[in-house]
Every structure is written in C-alpha cells, then in structure tokens.
C-alpha cells in the first residue's frame, strides 16, 4: 500500500472514462498531493502518462495488482518551478553520489510516499515534508543529513526546518531526484 491523498476507482471503465475521472479528481486536490487511479483498461497507462505530460502533472508510475492497474499522479505544484532555494548549505547530486553510502551520511527523502516508492536512493529514509514536524525525532543529530526531493524546493524548506530545530549538519541536495543518475532502489517495478 502506498499512502495517497485520494483514490479514484475507474475499474471496469474504458476510455475516455479513466482520464475524465482523473481530471475531475485532480481539480479537487491541492498542489503536491498524490492521486491513485485504479483502472482495468490496459490503454489507460500510456494515456495517463501522456495526459500528465501535456498538463504538467507528475506521472509517478503504475503498479499492476491482480489485473488492476494503479496509476500514481502528483498534482503539479507551481511554486516548485520557481526554484527559490534559500538554505545556504547545498550539495550537488554528484557530491551526494560520492557520500551517500558513508556511515556518517543520512539521506532524508521528503517527497510523497508514492514518489519514493517508484525510485529512491538506496538507504534513503522517507519522511514526506508534511510529516517532518511530527517525525523529526527519528532523525540522527550526529550524522550529516542530506535532504533530497524532486527538484530541491521541498528539500530546501525541510532543511530550513531542521536547522531551526537544532540540526547543524544539514545539506540540501540540488537539484535532487529529477536529475539523479546514481543507483536507485524501487519498491515497485
């Protein structure tokens, strides 16, 4: 089970209905929230991808379970495209690639669980930005925390938050998973 903000049931429906329902549901979501669309129409996978591309939403991936396709879509968040990064301590993807398996390194992935599920840095711990306040105690103070998201914006907010709460070895990874060329672990194929 991947945690999502809304589930749309389009099982048994053929196109165009899965997309029509997805479109309606996306309208009801907040930016950055994740939608799961359950469909049985095999063609829905390619269409979901193409539709997301044309509308700017983020197609995360599809899992097939017992003949049901579960598509994961994250509603586009406009502020992410502005890329206003203010946290001063940043590292590049390449720098993180050299460091992430050091015992002294801790990789914190603040994207949504569905984004994490479809590909993350091996060993990275998932705490979505929205859960960070309540789960901060899970983080080590004696390691360097590399905060990563898709483009560096959410991780910037998370890094600031950690610094305010007494974590003094925090690095924001720029740009993050959208350009990551290193190894990936995936819970899903």
């Amino acid at each position, binding site marked *: 089970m991947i945690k999502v903000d809304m589930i749309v049931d389009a099982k048994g429906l*053929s*196109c*165009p*209905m899965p*997309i*029509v329902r997805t*479109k309606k549901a996306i309208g009801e979501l907040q930016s950055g929230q994740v939608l799961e669309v359950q469909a049985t129409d*095999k*063609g829905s996978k*390619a*269409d979901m991808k*193409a*539709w997301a591309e*044309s509308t700017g939403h983020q197609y995360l991936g599809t899992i097939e379970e017992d003949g049901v396709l579960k598509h994961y879509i994250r509603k586009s968040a406009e502020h992410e495209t502005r890329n206003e990064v203010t946290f001063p301590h940043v590292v590049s993807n390449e720098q993180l690639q050299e460091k992430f398996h050091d015992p002294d390194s801790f990789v914190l992935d603040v994207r949504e669980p569905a984004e994490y599920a479809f590909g993350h840095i091996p060993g990275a711990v998932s705490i979505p930005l929205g859960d960070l306040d309540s789960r901060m105690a899970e983080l080590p103070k004696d390691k360097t925390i590399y905060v990563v998201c898709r483009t560096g914006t959410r991780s910037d907010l998370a890094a600031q938050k950690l610094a305010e709460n007494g974590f003094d070895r925090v690095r924001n990874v720029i740009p993050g998973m959208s350009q990551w060329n290193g190894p990936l672990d995936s819970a899903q194929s």
Partner: protein
Amino acid sequence: MMKEMTVQQMTEKVLNKESLFILDVRNESDFRDWKIEGENFAYLNVPYFELVDGVDSIVDRLPKDQDIVVVCAKGGSAAFVAEQLAEAGFDNVYTLAGGMQAWSEHLHQAKVYEDDQLKIYQFIRVGKGCLSYMVLSGDEALVVDPLRFIDVYEQVAQQEGVKITHIVDSHLHADHLSGGKALAERTGAAYYLMKSEGAVFDFEPLEQHETIDFENVHLEVLAVKTPGHTPGSVSFFVNGKWLFSGDTIFVGGLGRPDLGGKVAEWAEDLYHTVYEKVAAMADDVIVLPAHYANLDEEINAEGYVGDTLGRIRARNEMMQNKAKDEFIDLVIQGAKTETPPNFEDIVAINRGLKTVDIETQRELEIGPNRCALHHTHA
C-alpha cells in the same frame, strides 16, 4: 445516434483512394507509431484527453465539407469526441467502429484467380500489412500463412462448400501470431511447417514433403537445403504458376532478415532461393508474398497484392546476375537492426511454448505495419 463507419467501409475508402479527414484522438506517440494509411487521407491528431472540456480548440481545424472519421484505440473515446462535435454543429462526423483494434484485426478478401478447377483468395490485413491465402479446388482448400482470425477462413470455406484440408506456414512468424495450429485443431487439416523452426506441438514437417497434392492442386515446397544449417523459410509453388513467396520475395523487393544473429545464413538461403529455385521460373509466374510495405504502391489493378516475377526481377537489381558474395554482402548491409515489437513472445507462442489469452494476443500484435519493414530496396 452517432454515425459509425465500419472497418469494411474504411477499407473500401482506402482501396478506392477516396478522400477522407481522420481525426485521430489517441495519444501522440500511438499516432506517430501507426495510423490508418490512405493515399488521399488528411489527418489531425489531438488526444481525447485534451478535449475532455470541449472541442472549441479544434473546430477551426476541421473541414465542414468533407466526411470526418474520429478514430481512437477501441471506439469509446472517439464516440465521446464525436458527440461533442455533433453538438458543435458538425453533421459530417463518423466514428470508426471498434477503433484501431478492429482496424488491426480486419481482413479484406481479394480474388487472385478463378477458373473451373481452382480459385485463389488473398486476405489483406490492411491495418498491419500481412497477407494470407486460400487455394480452393474441388471440395478442398489449402490455407497459406493463416492469421489468428481463423473464423474468416472457416466462413469462406463454408460459403464455398469446401473443407480446409491443408495448412502451410512459410516460416515461423515473428511479427504476428499464426492461426495455423488453432485452424488445424478446428478443421482437422494437416498443418505443415519446417521442423527446424522449433515448434513443440504435432505437425507435418515440411522437410519430409517435397510436394503437397490434392484435387487439382500441385504444390511444390521450395526449400533451400544448405549444408551446415537448416533453412527456416520456404516458398510454395502452386501449379507452376503461383509462387507463395513468404518472406523471401516481395512486390517491392527482397526480404530482409529481421531476427539478427543469423543474417549471413539467411542471406545465403535467399541467394539460393533467388538464383537456383526462382531463377528457373518463367517471367509470368505470379508472386504472392506474405507481406507488403505500401498498399497503394503494391496493390495491382486486379485488387490484390502481387506481381509477375518478370516485372519484380526487372525492377530489382539484386535479382539480376549478382555474384554470390556481392549478393550476401548487400543483404547483410541491408539487414535491419530493429526487431518486430514483442517478437520474443510472438515466436514463443507460434512455437507452442506459450499460450496467452485473447486480450494479450491483441496487445502483442497491436501497432504499426512493422511486419513489412523487412523489405530491402537495394
């Protein structure tokens, strides 16, 4: 009620070179991959999901004085868009019934020849470029390279009052699913293919048959026996007049090996086929291939895909006194590197190593006219 166009009607429009406006509402990559090809067709591709909130964005790009056919994968999205167009005042809008799935599965029946003793039909899979045949004589019929739509052959046999007694595959197809095994099971016909192709079910090995005879049909199996390896592909020469050439000789040129690895052997086979078996044949022999690349160019005035050996030879330098080494080099140079989509699954199914449901069969075969890519224009 929406107006529908059937795949049969669409085929007529293609064959008659009529003009038509196709509004294809599948996603852009599907449209780029394959579409309904017509010499006088005009196209607009806008995915249906961009028209969910209305068709205002495209009404200016559609003709008012010409029929518009809305096409999608299976028909649902086309109907969704066509209804909106009707509401917007277009009365010239049709949907393609069954969409590209139906288009991919439609076989058009064309007559190649008929006299008192013999009749030959060609079945053109217009959406995919595959050709299969039925040779009828007396009370019996032979099917060459049947596709998986075996109802079609059974219906024709019933209409013509014949029993399908022989089925031949010219080679193990890698680009589409063969109907040979299923048709043999249903009709009790003998099913012939090359043993060297690795099928695991019961069949008649073509290696053991130099000829197949029934009623007024005399079929010669043209297999190149090359020392050192077993040939994969054969041709069938019927009554000294019709050459069912499989994947070796097409109307537009010679076949191109497509599965890699064995290109050199394949080229040598092709050389022996062309220069030993076929070279001795008369110019008026009619070549009936298993594929075509371009229907408009390869269909003849009689309405079937085929041409005389003389004309094919005249057009094709590769068939005119090429030295063996040069021929093989040219074929190897022209070999294509891409394989048909899903060929591993298709080959496994055609060998009987794997069975899949109808939905998966459709998925494996759906897509462009790639079975004809192995033409060489050298």
